[in-house]
């Protein structure tokens, strides 16, 4: 999703300097609040009454200092909360919540698969400038016909993660690689990338494509080098549309994919997994087609290996990953060729 909404980008330096930041899924708040332990009490004490996109500043032990909601909510929570924080004693600031840790079972599904591979993805709306793809500038956004209702953050990239199981990513490495050999990418990986990750989440929460909406889709790997590392070229295309006739489709993405992958047999791991998808998108956001640009306009999506041991890299790929059905659906085509 577009993570910089609700003024979070603006308050980021303030948060980094003064707070310890935690991001909790709205669904997980619900599950945590139902547990009988420190977490449940903590969440019940700090849940913002309005729900939605909320920000709360609290002590480590769970005494709420301030809260805010929606755009400006982050700033509101910080301004009031930090004032209240200054009134506390050192002891109050360092106290921990009473009670034992109780994690809801739903949290398990929000944990990356063991031995799996995580890719970080960015999706960005682009423009064509003299035949070349270019970033949309704040100056461009002044044209309200081309960018209807756009906030500046919609010209920034949205961030996602992609999860592959151990068996899935290992299927991408040929047992006996030979230069020049081309083979299809595992169907489960193709479908997952097309359905869940070739989407436009730059305006907020992204949708997904159904299996039927994959009108065409191919993804192949070609071995370009076999020693000392295995270098492969990923190439493919996908036409994703809400109607079988692309001209009639309310939403679509006509994407071409290109990638460079490097597998290190010594490390038994991919050391490079860079992929870009580019092509024309149309349809606006997933809540009624808001912010729809006229015609069909470029959308770029990049993928790369996560590098850091950062919580951002462990965020699940889906909003509803805590629920069994979406979790299963994401990994549904798990069987190997």
């Amino acid at each position, binding site marked *: *999703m577009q*993570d*910089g909404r609700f003024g979070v*980008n603006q308050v980021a*330096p303030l948060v*980094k300097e003064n*707070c*310890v*930041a*935690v*991001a*909790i*899924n*709205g669904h*997980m708040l619900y599950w*945590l609040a139902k547990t009988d332990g420190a*977490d449940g009490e*903590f969440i019940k004490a700090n849940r*913002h009454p309005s729900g*939605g*996109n909320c920000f*709360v500043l*609290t*002590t*480590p*032990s769970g005494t709420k200092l301030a809260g805010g909601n929606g755009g400006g909510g*982050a700033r509101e*929570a910080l301004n009031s909360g930090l004032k209240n924080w200054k009134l506390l004693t*050192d002891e109050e*600031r360092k106290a*921990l919540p009473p009670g034992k840790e109780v994690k809801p079972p739903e949290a398990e599904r*929000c944990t990356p698969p063991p031995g799996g591979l995580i890719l970080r993805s*960015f999706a960005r709306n*682009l423009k064509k400038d003299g*035949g070349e*793809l270019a*970033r949309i500038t704040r100056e461009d956004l002044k044209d309200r016909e081309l960018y209807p209702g756009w906030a500046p953050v919609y010209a*920034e*990239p949205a961030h*996602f993660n992609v999860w592959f199981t151990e068996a899935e990513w290992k299927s991408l490495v040929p047992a006996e690689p030979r230069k020049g050999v081309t083979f299809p990418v595992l169907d489960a990986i193709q479908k997952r990338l097309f359905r869940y990750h070739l989407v436009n989440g730059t305006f907020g929460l992204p949708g997904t494509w159904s299996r039927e909406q994959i009108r065409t889709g191919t993804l192949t790997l070609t071995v370009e080098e076999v020693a000392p590392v295995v270098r492969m070229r990923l190439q493919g295309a996908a036409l994703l549309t809400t109607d079988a006739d*692309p*001209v009639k489709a309310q939403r679509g993405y*006509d994407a*071409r994919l290109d990638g460079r992958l490097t597998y290190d047999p010594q490390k038994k791991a991919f050391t490079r997994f*860079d992929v*870009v998808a*580019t092509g*024309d998108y149309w349809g606006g956001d997933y809540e009624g087609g808001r912010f729809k640009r006229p*015609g069909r306009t470029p959308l*770029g999506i*990049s993928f*790369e290996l996560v590098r850091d041991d950062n*919580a*951002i890299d*462990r*965020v*699940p790929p*889906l*909003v*509803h990953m805590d629920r069994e059905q979406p979790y299963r659906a994401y990994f549904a085509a798990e069987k190997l060729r």
Partner: protein
Amino acid sequence: MLMFKLKRAAYVLLASSLLIRSIGELHALAPPTPAEGNLNAETFAQIGKQIKPQLGESRWMEVPWFLDLHEAWQKAAAEGKPLFIYSSGGATGIGDC
């Protein structure tokens, strides 16, 4: 005379809409620009760079977020800092769960 004018206006409108639709279809089926086709190493790197966050963008990523409440409150207590909790309707705010 009025009927004639109305019919003529209707024909003009119909012809215009057909023309606009044809242009729309042509646009929809237009081939990709060279930048979107087979990318060489240089254009591949260039497009990848264009897509990723630029200096001053996605500043939320500069924050060392926690996803686990326990880890977060332990760290906050140790450093004597308040907890900033970001919760989105269906998402974390920093991603989709």
